[in-house]
């Protein structure tokens, strides 16, 4: 029998310690710890009354809003597993995940309902809980669960029980569900608080999607476990972010590099915006340009730390007191890292190879993918697919990627997923996708295609075609039609020639 430990206990403890403190600011609403904790009980009991059993997976398709936090903790309190889906996903992507994870409950915002029109009919036993009021048949109004008074909910949850299933883009073309336990999340929450020096008095600003592990940790689990406050913005709009920092005295900001660049761009034109309340900024999701962290430090005297963490194993974050720009920092306390060559042999310090991670931060595996799990976790180490080196002080420097992947505004996009989508178009004979530099997003996908004989379509048609099936950020922004794709001697597309 393991230890009875659940992520939602983080909230219970702070709700007792700081009942009247505001935990979430959103638009004109301010939610206290005691109110949030009570609403989580109501929702957890509501889910149990609807038939939720321990370990059942509950999908949530929500933009950043307080209901994401409520339902996340409620699912965990009811001993379920949270499957947050990016609200930018298209119907095809959502349907794949709902089927793959055998989802029984789906929590969705009313505005996003059109995304699941077809799915509703195809998954007959799916219980759909809708936020925002609706009287449609077969729909459960979320507000009924939220407002129905319940006693505190106590379920037996153990450290190794699954807490979240986070879908990440997959090299095979379909997303993979990375499984993280309650123990994984609690370890990461505590280790990141220590490393990132987050404090009870900190006020965080949530601008990155809560469906992502980086946002769940930095904007939800860490502040809530400390008794901190978070202001949630529904979207990233640079000027609104800067106004909010000044208005709310935001002290903690976590974002992706492209967002920091966008903030600097607005700041350079608007001298009246005051960001002096920021104590710490953390960047993740993509390599941070040295120039960006330099400007933050030299012009605004705000440390901009960099972290590295694939969803499967958040591993490193630069320490506040001894940050080395260009490095993602040393591993978190309790996490081991190493660099290996093609034969999985450990390389000496300073040499470049694949970055591997071991420790309580590493996922339990991929849902329904035993082979992919065994491959990723071979030898007891998670193989990140990143190429890196480690210096004499144990700081990790990410050099590149072993896997063919594009980072679009901090989101992982595998070219194979786009290529598969393009291949399904009846006029396309061959397709290859690469990442090209983009000033706003870091990188963006560009597709090269060869049409079947007799086809006459314009590139625009293929961009619109991808948009039907893939989230907007994954869709190629440029499509080039070629007579043939360059190949290497083995007949494989030579993407270097396309770059």
């Amino acid at each position: 029998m393991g230890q009875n430990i659940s992520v939602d206990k983080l909230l219970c403890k702070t709700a007792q310690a700081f009942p009247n403190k505001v935990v979430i600011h959103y638009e004109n609403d301010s939610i206290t710890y005691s109110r949030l904790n009570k609403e989580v009980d109501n929702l957890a009991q509501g889910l149990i009354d609807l038939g939720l059993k321990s370990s059942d997976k509950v999908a949530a398709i929500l933009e950043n809003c307080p209901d994401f936090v409520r339902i996340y903790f409620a699912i965990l309190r009811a001993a379920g597993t949270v499957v947050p889906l990016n609200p930018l996903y298209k119907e095809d992507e959502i349907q794949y995940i709902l089927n793959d994870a055998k989802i029984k409950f789906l929590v969705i915002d009313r505005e996003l309902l059109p995304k699941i029109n077809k799915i509703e009919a195809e998954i007959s036993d799916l219980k759909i809980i809708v936020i925002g009021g609706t009287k449609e048949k077969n729909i459960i109004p979320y507000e009924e669960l939220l407002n129905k008074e319940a006693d505190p909910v106590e379920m037996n949850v153990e450290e190794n029980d699954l807490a979240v299933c986070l879908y990440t883009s997959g090299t095979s073309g379909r997303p993979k569900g990375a499984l993280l336990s309650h123990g994984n999340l609690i370890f990461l929450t505590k280790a990141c608080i220590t490393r990132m020096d987050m404090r009870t008095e900190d006020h965080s600003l949530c601008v990155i999607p809560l469906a992502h592990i980086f946002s769940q940790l930095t904007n939800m689990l860490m502040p809530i476990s400390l008794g901190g406050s978070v202001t949630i913005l529904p979207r990233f709009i640079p000027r609104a972010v800067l106004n909010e920092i000044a208005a709310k005295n935001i002290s903690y900001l976590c974002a992706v590099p492209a967002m920091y660049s966008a903030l600097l761009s607005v700041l350079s034109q608007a001298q009246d915006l005051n960001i002096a309340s920021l104590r710490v900024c953390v960047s993740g999701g993509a390599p941070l340009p040295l120039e960006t962290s330099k400007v933050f430090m030299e012009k605004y005297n705000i440390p901009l730390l960099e972290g590295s963490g694939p969803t499967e194993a958040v591993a490193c974050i630069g320490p506040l007191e001894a940050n080395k720009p260009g490095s993602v920092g040393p591993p978190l306390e309790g996490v081991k890292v190493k660099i290996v060559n093609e034969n999985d042999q450990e390389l000496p310090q300073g040499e470049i190879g694949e970055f591997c991670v071991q420790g309580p931060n590493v996922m339990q595996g991929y849902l329904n993918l035993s082979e992919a799990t065994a491959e990723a976790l071979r030898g007891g180490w998670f193989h990140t697919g990143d190429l890196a080196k480690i210096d004499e002080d144990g700081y990790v420097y990410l050099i590149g990627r072993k896997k063919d992947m594009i980072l679009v505004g901090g989101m992982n996009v595998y070219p194979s997923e786009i290529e598969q989508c393009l291949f399904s178009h009846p006029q396309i004979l061959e397709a290859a996708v690469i990442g090209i530099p983009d000033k706003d997003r870091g990188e963006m996908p560009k597709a090269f295609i060869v049409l079947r004989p007799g086809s006459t379509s314009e590139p625009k048609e293929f961009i619109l075609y991808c948009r039907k099936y893939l989230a907007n950020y994954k869709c190629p922004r440029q499509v080039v039609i070629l007579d043939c794709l360059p190949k290497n001697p083995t007949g494989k597309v030579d993407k270097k020639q396309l770059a």
Partner: protein
Amino acid sequence: MILARIKVIIDEQFIYEGELNEHTRVIDDLGADSFDIPVMVNAIEDEFRETISDEELFRIRTIGDIIEIIEGRQKALEEDK
């Protein structure tokens, strides 16, 4: 008139299907991501010489929402006169 001026901006930035109208959705129909929206809004503010508030920005879902904001501004300006 407002739609025609917005259309010029949208056509420069996005690829979309069909005719642009007030029902066109910024994310679903234009394919915008979070980095496109500030660029679009800046161009619209420059074109109409108006500032769109943060609250209004977060409420924009369709081209009709943008038209409504601009129309509201123009009406208020006329009333002030």
